């Protein structure tokens, strides 16, 4: 068997091939030769053959039969064989093949080889394609090599460790001790890969991250290294365009970013160095810009002081004006990341960003578009929309769908007026009509129905739009729907917003029929058109027969959807004509089901719901205030705070036990916004205070354990008893439940109970159970009073009672002084 040809020969031969078929032939011949050579187990030429095989593999031809040969080469003693063998393994094998496990032993031996380059090869292969089993087996060896003093091996071991950690995250702890000294190295290669290893560990495990922040004092070490790099002056070996090892600087900045994120101490430690790098780096070459860019990203991501942030955004602004396209692209990308957090700062550069929309570069245009949408707000909507619409006109088709959706979203959120909104929608539909997403059509329709006063204007504009051209499906769908719905407005020739056009019913039907017939209309569009025609049968007067004819034609359409519709509509004409007008009535305004993202109906700008607690006027009008004033007068002076009781509601008296009533009333506290029981207090601070004490826990002492009740008032047959409870959570709060009973033979009606307490107290009165005290003690009115007594003073109370009895209005004042000590101490 003649010696296999050299790789060079093979390549030369293949290059002479003039057609793909010729090349394939040559390759197949050579493969056959290689295969027979492999069968002969010839050691001398094996590496030559594998090299050729790899070349053919690169061109796209199958080479899997060489996998085992690669393994044999790896097991060989010669460096040449090992080199090509490992390369072959990396290119041809992967962990999905079982064959690769056979390598494990070889790699293990090679990791301990005497020649550093062999060790290097083994590390490289393990780090590229080691499977999790292999990594588990060999992690110990890698860890050993991580501690060696040979910098060539150390840096490879570091990257190999990264791969091991990615495959088997549990092994991360194993490498921790070895990382202690990594940053003390002088060799930049080792430094670089060590930083990569540390970055990987910090990213993967928050525990590691915390460990490195506190125990290892990683941040000061990194700051020191960075400082040396910047200050060290000219160092020829690591210099790239005058900057000292920019790759290492960038890596360190990235690690600093991870360490500083959400951590005040670390962020503070790096503020200085970041400022230094930001101001000292030369920006004339790409390397300088790479470092600056990384610095900016780090500043934005950590908890930096505001001066630094402003510096960062200004650097980005300068980038935007740079001539180099790459820099502009990179600046736009980072602005997009920061626009959420530093919105105002980015707004300053809005005009530059909008200019980028006109750039020739596709990547820059895309970034600028995304950023523009992020910057749109209520103030700049008109200007921005003009630019965006212009962009939509002139941009590449791949952008149009995204741009259209973005415009719709922005218009919905910030439209200054309904007319402007409709105009914008029209503009988008007419310019990019065929690129509008399908889900936009129902949204648009819903929007149009909501702007009731614009219906005539909308339908007129839509009609005019499709008169010329009905090929853009979303536009035609929206137009067909609107014409079907508001066709009567169209033919009536009324329009406030612009010059009304004169359209006859026949013309409208003409256009809808053309849509139906046209080849360009999709099935969905045809469905819209047919339904629209049907709806017009109730809105138009003279063309009902025409409509009937059209509908009956489509009863035999091939399209099943159309056919079904037509048949049903036919039936509507024939058998169910009496229901037709009701069925085809004007649609009610649709409610939006907000399922997708921030699309919300254009209410005002999402302001908070007015807090019902705050400035609610006393519900029962002027009367209680005068009574309160009376109380004030009577009690002489300003040391009493009057309380305005809640208006007695028409709640059914729950005749249950006191505790139930209490709980029933307390539920009200949780919902202050409900109208019937408004917060009764003029002082804003009260309700939360008292309510806090009494939220949903079982707070009350058992009545049995507790405080004796008192009779606060007893006169003319009216008796009022107080029962007390103290709150467990808030010892300053006492809850008094009053019970009013009537021992006379006639009911007392319109019963109102009012109370006042000294100024150091606060009082809240909840609604009573009813306003009638039934006669003969057959029932009681229950009402809850909550008293806040922060200074633990003796409880005193003035009460005022008004009611109607025996046909006359009664009123009485009394003071309650017999509060038991347990109720306020």
């Amino acid at each position, binding site marked *: 068997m003649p010696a296999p040809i050299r790789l060079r020969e093979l390549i030369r031969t293949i290059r002479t091939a003039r057609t793909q078929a010729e090349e394939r032939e040559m390759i197949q011949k050579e493969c056959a030769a290689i295969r027979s050579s492999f069968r002969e187990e010839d050691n001398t030429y094996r590496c030559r053959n594998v090299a050729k095989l790899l070349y053919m593999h690169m061109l*796209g031809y199958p080479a899997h039969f060489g996998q085992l040969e690669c393994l044999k080469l790896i097991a060989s003693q010669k460096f040449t064989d090992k080199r090509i063998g490992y390369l072959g393994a990396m290119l041809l094998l992967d962990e999905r093949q079982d064959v690769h496990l056979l390598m494990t032993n070889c790699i293990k031996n090679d990791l301990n080889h005497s020649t550093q380059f062999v060790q290097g090869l083994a590390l*490289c292969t393990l780090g*590229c394609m080691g499977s999790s089993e292999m990594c588990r087996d060999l992690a110990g060896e890698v860890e050993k090599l991580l501690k060696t003093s040979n910098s060539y091996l150390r840096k490879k071991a570091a990257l190999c460790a990264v791969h091991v950690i990615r495959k088997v995250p549990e092994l991360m702890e194993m490498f921790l001790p070895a990382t202690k000294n990594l940053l003390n190295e002088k060799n930049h290669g080792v430094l670089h890969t060590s930083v990569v290893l540390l970055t990987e560990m910090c990213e993967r495990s928050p525990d590691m991250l915390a460990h490195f922040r506190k125990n290892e004092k990683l941040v000061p070490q990194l700051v020191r290294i960075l400082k040396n790099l910047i200050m060290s002056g000219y160092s020829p070996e690591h210099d*790239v365009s005058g900057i000292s090892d920019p790759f290492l600087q960038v890596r360190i900045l990235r690690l600093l970013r991870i360490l500083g994120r959400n951590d005040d101490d670390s962020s503070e430690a790096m503020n200085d160095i970041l400022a230094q790098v930001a101001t000292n780096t030369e920006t004339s070459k790409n390397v300088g810009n790479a470092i600056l860019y990384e610095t900016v990203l780090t500043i934005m991501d950590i908890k930096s002081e505001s001066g630094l942030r402003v510096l960062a955004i200004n650097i980005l602004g300068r980038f935007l004006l740079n001539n180099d396209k790459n820099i502009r692209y990179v600046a736009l990308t980072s602005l997009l990341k920061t626009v959420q957090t530093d919105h105002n700062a980015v707004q300053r550069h809005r005009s530059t960003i909008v200019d980028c929309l006109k750039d020739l570069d596709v990547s820059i245009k895309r970034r600028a578009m995304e950023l523009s949408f992020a910057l749109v707000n209520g103030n700049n909507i008109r200007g921005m929309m003009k630019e965006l619409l212009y962009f939509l006109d002139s941009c590449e088709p791949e952008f149009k769908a995204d741009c259209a959706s973005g415009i719709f979203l922005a218009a919905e959120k910030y439209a200054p007026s309904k007319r402007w909104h409709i105009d914008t929608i029209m503009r988008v539909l007419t310019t990019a009509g065929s690129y509008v997403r399908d889900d936009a059509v129902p949204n648009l329709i819903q929007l149009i129905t909501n702007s009731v006063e614009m219906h005539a204007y909308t339908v007129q504009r839509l009609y005019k739009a499709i008169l010329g051209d009905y090929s853009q499906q979303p536009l035609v769908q929206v137009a067909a729907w609107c014409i079907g719905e508001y066709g009567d407005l169209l033919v009536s020739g009324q329009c406030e917003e612009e010059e009304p056009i004169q359209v006859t019913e026949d013309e409208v039907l003409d256009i809808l029929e053309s849509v139906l017939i046209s080849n360009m209309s999709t099935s969905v569009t045809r469905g819209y058109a047919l339904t629209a025609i049907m709806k017009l049968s109730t809105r138009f007067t003279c063309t009902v027969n025409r409509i009937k004819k059209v509908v009956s034609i489509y009863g035999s359409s091939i399209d099943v959807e159309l056919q079904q519709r037509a048949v049903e509509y036919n039936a509507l004409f024939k058998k169910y004509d009496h229901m037709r007008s009701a069925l085809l009535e004007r649609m009610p305004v649709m409610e939006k089901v907000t399922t997708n993202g921030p699309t919300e109906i254009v209410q005002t700008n999402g302001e908070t719901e007015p807090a019902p607690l705050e400035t609610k006027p006393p519900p029962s009008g002027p009367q209680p205030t005068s009574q309160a004033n009376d109380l004030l007068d009577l009690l002489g002076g300003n040391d009493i705070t009057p309380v305005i009781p809640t208006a007695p509601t028409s709640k059914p008296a729950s005749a249950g036990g006191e505790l139930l009533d209490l709980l029933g009333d307390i539920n009200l506290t949780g919902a202050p916004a409900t109208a019937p029981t408004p917060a009764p207090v003029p002082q804003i601070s009260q309700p939360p205070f008292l309510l806090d004490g009494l939220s949903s826990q079982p707070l009350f002492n058992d009545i049995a354990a507790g405080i004796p009740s008192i009779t606060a008032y007893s006169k003319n047959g009216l008796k009022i008893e107080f029962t007390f409870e103290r709150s467990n959570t808030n010892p300053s709060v006492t809850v008094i439940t009053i019970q009013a009973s009537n021992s006379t033979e006639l009911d007392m009606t319109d019963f109102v109970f009012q109370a006042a307490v000294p100024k150091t107290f606060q009082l809240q009165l909840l609604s009573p159970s009813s306003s009638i005290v039934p006669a003969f003690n057959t029932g009681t009115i229950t009402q809850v009073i909550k008293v806040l007594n922060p200074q633990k003073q003796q409880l005193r109370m003035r009460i005022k009672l008004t009611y109607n009895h025996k046909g006359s209005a009664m009123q009485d004042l009394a003071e309650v002084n017999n509060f038991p000590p347990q109720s306020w101490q």
Partner: protein
Amino acid sequence: MIQAILVFNNHGKPRLVRFYQHFPEEIQQQIVRETFHLVLKRDDNICNFLEGGSLIGGSDYKLIYRHYATLYFVFCVDSSESELGILDLIQVFVETLDKCFENVCELDLIFHMDKVHYILQEVVMGGMVLETNMNEIVAQIEAQNRLEKSEVRQVL
């Protein structure tokens, strides 16, 4: 992390194909073709960053490329790599090739595909940047070549 490094000429013929993540063979060739088409469309005065094609991974991946004479050098990276940094890395790689081959041209890459792989192995390992110092890389490559030569029988 670097997902793939591709070098092909102005007609799309691959000169160096290295994937750091596993793809089946047909997909690999498809990726090379797709990348070539994407890169060919680009003018010379627009930026060197492309959003990745659909095959090579989702929206997180970018193609960063440089055009030297007849060759395109394309690195497919994810968001953990600095874009501008990778541009510099490509420059370093090409300059290293230049030093190793003395005024490198496309033919050198064609006939010494394995050597190019070895040089690349000293720069990028497992999808991560290993060494960026040109002199260091060249020194290591030369040492390994000497080791090979010293073994009896030059086979290739």
